[in-house]
């Protein structure tokens, strides 16, 4: 007898930003990463680079060096972080004889 199997799974998820107690006090319980607001994420990255907070080169000096309130750090939020995608495929065949 011959049997065939095919197991398949795909998982996509977006993670919440890690919050410290200080961040919850300052930013609130509902604080999270910037996605889908790409412009704000880039504005904060530009300011962080201009301030020397990231070590990455300055590419938009016009953004200045003052974070928009209530942000005080390049680590308050990122654009996004996740275990974005995991995909698994498992085909198998089983043969039995008597």
């Amino acid at each position, binding site marked *: 007898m011959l049997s065939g199997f095919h197991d398949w799974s795909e998982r996509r998820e977006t993670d919440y930003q890690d919050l410290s107690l200080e961040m919850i006090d300052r930013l609130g319980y509902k604080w999270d990463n910037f996605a889908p607001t790409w412009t704000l994420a880039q504005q904060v990255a530009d300011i962080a680079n201009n301030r020397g907070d990231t070590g*990455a080169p300055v*590419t938009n000096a016009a953004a200045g060096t003052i974070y928009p309130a209530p942000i005080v750090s390049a680590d308050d939020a990122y654009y996004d972080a996740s275990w*974005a995608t995991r995909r698994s495929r*498992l085909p198998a065949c*089983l043969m039995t004889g008597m």
Partner: protein
Amino acid sequence: MTSDLSVSATAYLHENEGQGIWFTPYVSPFSFGQGGPNVSPISVRTTEYDMNRAGALGSATWILGDHTIEGGFWYEYNDFNQDRRFYANTRAAPRPTLEFMRNPFATQWSYAYDFETTMFYIQDRWDVTDALTVSGGFKSVTVDMAVDTNIAGFVAPTSGSNADLDGTITSEDNFLPQIGFTYELADNSEIFGGYTENMRAFTLAPAASQTQSGFDFIKENTDPESSKTTEVGWRYRNGPFQGVAAAYYVKFEDRLLGLLRARASSATVGDQERRKRDDQGR
């Protein structure tokens, strides 16, 4: 073939790929000569793996009087890769966050692993009387893990240098016995017992974040973890009630502990005993 002999064979493939992502302002394409007026200072950092394994299982069972004799094998080849990569975005739009990232502008580290697993076993179940069944057998296991460094510290390491980790670590035990019995006290009541020896093959840990000298040291000074388990117990069923009371004693040998010093390493920290009694009913 007669009705006393049956055989079974299974072949399988398994592909599994995953990426953990972080949109980071700390690593910029501009630092890698990949900048431009439309390039965003934010890149996507991934921790990604890609596994492709193929294997086969086979067994044959022979019924001979009161004995049921079974022998079999398992073979698997696992091609496993782990990488840390960076992907660029444009000023206009970020990459879709829930799609696989492709075409990186930089790779911080990349390791290729190959796992080869070979296992044989043979066992006999002997129905001594209607109430008493005794079983025994052993397995032989070998797992070879080979590691090769593609990229370390954003560059392909100089061949033969300490950063160019390349090697194989083997976990092998050719005699891992298991014996057991069940004895039926009544239709709804049974006592059981067993003794099992087992081994946990080395995984990625001896090679993770290692140099050649660190890997060689671990290979020279550690053994795979192993265990010897003895257990006895009683099962009981009455109407909707099922219960089991069991006690077990496990002797672990060569327990491994990961230590973080100037760099990561593994050390054998010795043996451990574990005793417990489980009583549960539902």
